[in-house]
């Protein structure tokens, strides 16, 4: 419970802290890892791994397939009338059943000030779905902006490696403040203010219904991410991610951490879009020997791919017991 609350606070913007107490298992592991021999062994293993330089994009490839497929289904449902998911990511019918993006539905209800029964149905379905699949997995597995931003991020990293650009991080609390601001704006103005700048809605509609001038805004955001601030939108701004983050806090699908296997080299944190969720991979930051990665995790699997010792892996809670 305490860890869950801590995870929430970190999602809202709190900096992860070193725990003041460890579980006995963690304590014992830490002690074993701090011996000079263990340090040497780790150094050697890291060096070996660096020399081997294996590249693994298993999860990323599946993710990209998923993002493209889901968005393609929307497009083809209209364009060639296969009628699987009609609408856009903001709201749709999946073979006739209402689906509504949680954040869009929330904005509509705050602005309209009515409880719309179809939206309640639509959001319940989506809520259940994303609770099951891991909350922010929406970001990594469905959101079209995420895919574009990933490409922009690669570009940013290449340019940064050559010293042409520099990352300017923001405080992660920015998103929390904006979340409240957008909710208040919807209530006060009576308009769905956030939808005007939401790259998710803009892209989703543009794919299905054709070019829109609003795409220039999306392009502008991507330029910011390439030249100024890495993953600017997804990390520090997007309220959709936060909404799904809350849903995912209780999800059975999790990336889990096994301290015993960890070499504490930090490769996972370098590739992660939300590295604060991986704070326990730093030596002495894990309260327990085995831990779940926090609510803000998008289940993108990049850390799982990059981890040489499989200290990080996907897990479906309860399923391993069942099997």
């Amino acid at each position, binding site marked *: 419970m305490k860890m869950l609350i801590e995870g929430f606070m970190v999602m809202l913007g709190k900096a992860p802290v070193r725990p003041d107490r460890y579980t006995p298992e963690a304590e014992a592991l830490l002690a074993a890892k701090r011996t000079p021999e263990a340090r040497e062994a780790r150094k050697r293993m890291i060096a070996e791994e660096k020399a081997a330089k294996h590249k693994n994009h298993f999860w990323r490839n599946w993710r990209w397939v998923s993002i493209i497929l889901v968005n393609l289904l929307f497009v083809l449902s209209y364009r060639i009338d296969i009628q699987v998911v009609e609408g856009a990511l903001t709201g749709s019918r999946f073979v006739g059943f209402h689906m509504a993006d949680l954040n869009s539905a929330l904005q509509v209800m705050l602005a309209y000030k009515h409880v719309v029964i179809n939206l309640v149905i639509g959001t319940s379905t989506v809520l259940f779905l994303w609770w099951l699949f891991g909350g922010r997995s929406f970001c990594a597995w469905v959101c079209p902006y995420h895919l574009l931003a990933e490409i922009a991020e690669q570009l940013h990293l290449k340019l940064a490696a050559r010293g042409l650009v520099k990352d300017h991080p923001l405080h992660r609390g920015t998103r929390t403040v904006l979340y409240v601001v957008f909710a208040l704006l919807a209530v006060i103005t009576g308009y769905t203010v956030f*939808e005007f700048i939401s790259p998710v809605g803009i892209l989703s509609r543009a794919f299905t219904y054709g070019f829109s001038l609003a795409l220039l805004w999306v392009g502008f955001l991507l330029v910011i991410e390439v030249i100024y601030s890495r993953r600017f939108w997804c990390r520090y701004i997007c309220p959709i991610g936060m909404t799904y983050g809350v849903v995912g806090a209780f999800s059975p699908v999790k990336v889990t951490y096994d301290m015993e296997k960890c070499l504490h080299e930090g490769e996972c944190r370098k590739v992660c879009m939300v590295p604060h969720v991986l704070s326990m991979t730093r030596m002495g930051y894990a309260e327990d020997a085995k831990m779940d990665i926090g609510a803000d995790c998008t289940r993108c699997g990049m850390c799982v791919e990059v981890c040489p010792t499989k200290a990080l892996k996907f897990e479906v809670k309860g399923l391993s017991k069942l099997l």
Partner: protein
Amino acid sequence: MIKLFGSSSPDSDERRRFLRSALLGSAIAAASLLGFLPVVKRWSQRLRPPGAIVEHEFLAACIKCGQCLQVCPVKAIRLGDAPDGYGLGVPYIEPREQACDFSCDALQCILACPTGALNHTLSVKEQVRMGLARLSNPESCLARQGKGFKGPARGADFPGIHRYAEIDRWKAIPIADHPYDLESCDLCVRECPIKGAIVMKPMSDDPSDRRRTPEVTADCTGCGMCEMICPAEASAITVEPRAVWRA
């Protein structure tokens, strides 16, 4: 307490990060507020699809998904773009280019709407009130000049479509494929999908006077079919979005 901003160390990096966050965060909020301008200034008074609730509530209730657009058999519905401000992604109809002619009979757009931004209590087309047709350019009206009309109503290249019940009850065809030969132009009355919403009135008591004037009645739904079909350039009859009929 959670410290959302800054840390206890007066580190200048930290201060810069705080400033950057405040600045860019505000910039994002400011960008989102730009959507107000077109709405408040009413730059574009759009004709909304059948059943649209009052404008400000419509913009709030619409979830911007375009499902109404997808079910429209004549593709009359379009989605607003960035210059529409908070009307971005919100459906509208440009009747001169493609009007709603109630081809679907059962108000499919209303049925498709997941949020009730298009009012679900309407069940027949006669209940719809999108606006009101007006004879806004009487001087260009052919009927008022006693003239007839021959040929395709809007020229051979006009892409608009319309359901002609006498040709195919279930499928709309291009207006360009359906030329007319009328002794006296009455296209707005002839193609109006609502019986009695427009009537042709003689302009004098003289029976040899062929001049007629279209008169809009309280039954007009504002669908815009008359505006689309009017062969005069510019259209003699146009729909005023959200206008309400007064005797």
